[in-house]
């Protein structure tokens, strides 16, 4: 299909292009990437190296159909039906029960050494075709999986013949009204789609699954390489495998078309609200950056408390301090978090950063947000996660989380730790400062031989704000923001000096 240039597409824009209808796969996250799902009544190749979750993917696809009352046919060229039943049970897919109910049929073409069949003369795949068509009719299947075509090619020497037979079979399955997915094995993650190039011949669409080792961490990705005649998101997106199967994590797939909110919410501190020009915006993301001991956790606690006092629900993902520690500190500052939690206004989730891969953290956090429906969310700290994620994963994590919060109009506050005590920026900031709407800096400053603290609203997208560096201190009753530092410069660089009279 020829690529249209910009001018060409503009002229034909008047005529709406008939796009191919999509079938919602039911695999979480995939349908967003596929702009609706997989092309309906077409054949899609799922290609990946060994262990890239191809079988799980196609089984999940079929299982989703069964959950909607449709029939499914699984043609297995490699694993035995018994192995598949056993392996997939851990995802809650009781295939044996579906078989008994007539909703699922296996066509078992797995190799049987006892049946090694020499070839004498010409042949076709008539047996396979009849069995599959029969199974489709018996179950009323709308989804069919062939796993894996590569195994078929090792059984039969004549590639061209097999290719043509497969093409015929997929065509007839499409005519029977089913959407077909078939798997093929790759030998490399980047390069040829498949070693022989045959499987693509049979396919209308190609999806690539990858299981890469990046920075000593496993990283699973999915990429819709092509949809013939249909739209989809481009590029690799991360996915993970959890208790219910595959979860794909689209990165900001939904373009944010809604307007930014102009409604203000409290930061939890009236002086800070004033510095920000009236408070944080409802759907903004605030980054609080400071060295250890500068009061980030206190600011986070105030943020949560501010929400609770305003009758909001506040959710904290705590990766540094335990819930108990947090509640004790809050109590010391006069905030009763136990009570707030009992009233259902506050929830604190403690988690070890290295407990699970990035994708799983993200999925669990989104699930919790969905379940608790908070008005504001805090993450303390992003740096704790950044230390265990790869760079790319970390950035994707932040993009995905901020997208989720903005989509739901939740106010977000993230903390990040600067490695140096005096001045400097954090690595976290370097990577995500463009993704945040507001940045608050907490810095130590040494003046006249004593350690003082400065707070500055560095950025506040969409609002005028106090640009001063103000001194603050922390005591038993919380954070107190005072006047601006006068007569001192170079605080953010860590080299404060008194400004001479005649400067």
């Amino acid at each position, binding site marked *: 299909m020829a690529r249209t240039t910009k001018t060409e597409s503009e002229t034909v824009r008047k005529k709406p292009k008939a796009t191919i209808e999509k079938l919602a796969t039911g695999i979480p996250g995939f349908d967003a990437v596929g702009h609706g799902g997989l092309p309906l009544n077409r054949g899609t190749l799922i290609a990946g190296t060994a262990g890239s979750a191809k079988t799980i993917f196609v089984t999940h696809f079929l299982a989703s159909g069964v959950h909607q009352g449709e029939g499914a046919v699984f043609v297995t060229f490699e694993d035995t039906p018994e192995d598949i039943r056993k392996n997939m049970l851990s995802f809650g897919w009781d295939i044996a029960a579906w078989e008994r109910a007539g909703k699922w049929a296996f066509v078992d073409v797995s190799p049987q050494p006892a049946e090694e069949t020499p070839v004498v003369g010409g042949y*076709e795949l*008539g047996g396979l075709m009849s069995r599959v068509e029969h199974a489709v009719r018996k179950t009323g299947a709308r989804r069919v999986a062939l796993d894996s075509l590569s195994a078929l090619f090792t059984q039969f020497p004549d590639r061209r013949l097999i290719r043509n037979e497969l093409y015929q079979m997929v065509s007839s399955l499409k005519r029977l009204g089913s959407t077909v997915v078939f798997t093929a094995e790759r030998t490399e993650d980047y390069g040829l789609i498949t070693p022989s190039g045959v499987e693509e011949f049979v396919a209308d669409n190609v999806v690539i699954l990858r299981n890469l080792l990046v920075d000593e961490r496993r990283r699973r990705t999915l990429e819709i390489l092509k949809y013939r005649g249909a739209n989809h998101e481009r590029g690799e997106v991360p996915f993970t495998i959890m208790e219910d199967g595959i979860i794909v994590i689209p990165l900001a797939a939904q373009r944010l078309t809604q307007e930014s909110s102009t409604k203000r919410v409290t930061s939890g501190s009236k002086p800070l609200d004033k510095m920000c020009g009236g408070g944080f915006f409802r759907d903004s993301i605030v980054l609080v950056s400071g060295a250890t001991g500068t009061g980030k956790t206190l600011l986070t606690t105030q943020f949560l408390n501010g929400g609770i006092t305003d009758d909001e629900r506040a959710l904290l993902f705590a990766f540094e301090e335990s819930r108990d520690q947090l509640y004790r500190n809050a109590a010391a500052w006069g905030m009763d978090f136990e009570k707030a939690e009992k009233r259902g206004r506050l929830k604190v989730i403690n988690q070890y950063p290295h407990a699970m891969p990035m994708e799983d953290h993200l999925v669990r956090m989104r699930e919790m947000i969905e379940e608790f429906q908070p008005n504001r969310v805090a993450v303390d700290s992003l740096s704790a996660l950044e230390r265990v994620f790869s760079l790319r994963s970390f950035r994707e994590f932040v993009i995905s989380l901020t997208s989720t919060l903005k989509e739901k109009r939740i106010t977000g506050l993230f903390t990040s730790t600067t490695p140096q005590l005096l001045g400097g920026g954090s690595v976290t900031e370097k990577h995500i400062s463009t993704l945040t709407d507001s940045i608050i800096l907490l810095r130590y400053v040494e003046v006249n031989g004593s350690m003082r603290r400065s707070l500055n609203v560095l950025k506040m997208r969409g609002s005028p704000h106090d640009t001063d560096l103000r001194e603050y201190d922390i005591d038993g009753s919380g954070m107190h923001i005072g006047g601006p530092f006068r007569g001192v410069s170079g605080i953010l660089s860590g080299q404060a000096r008194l400004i001479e009279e005649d400067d």
Partner: protein
Amino acid sequence: MVRFRLYVAGDSYRSQRAIANLRKLGEERLAGRYELNVVDVQRDPDAAEQDRILATPTLIKLDPGPSRRVTGDLTDFEQVLMALALPSGQEI
């Protein structure tokens, strides 16, 4: 007495060739002492499922045991007999 079951797909040219070749082989090499049961996978997919038939034509020798199979339109008799572990050119 040799018992055969031949799986074919419909009435294609290949199916007819396989049947014709098998009958010829039976007359010439087995002195006519054979039984043939032809199964069309399109009409009886359950039988195809039972016998796990993938390609057609596929010939199964049921007796004398053990059961053996060969796929193709059976053009080369020597190869067919070898594949089915039948003695070539001998009376059964």
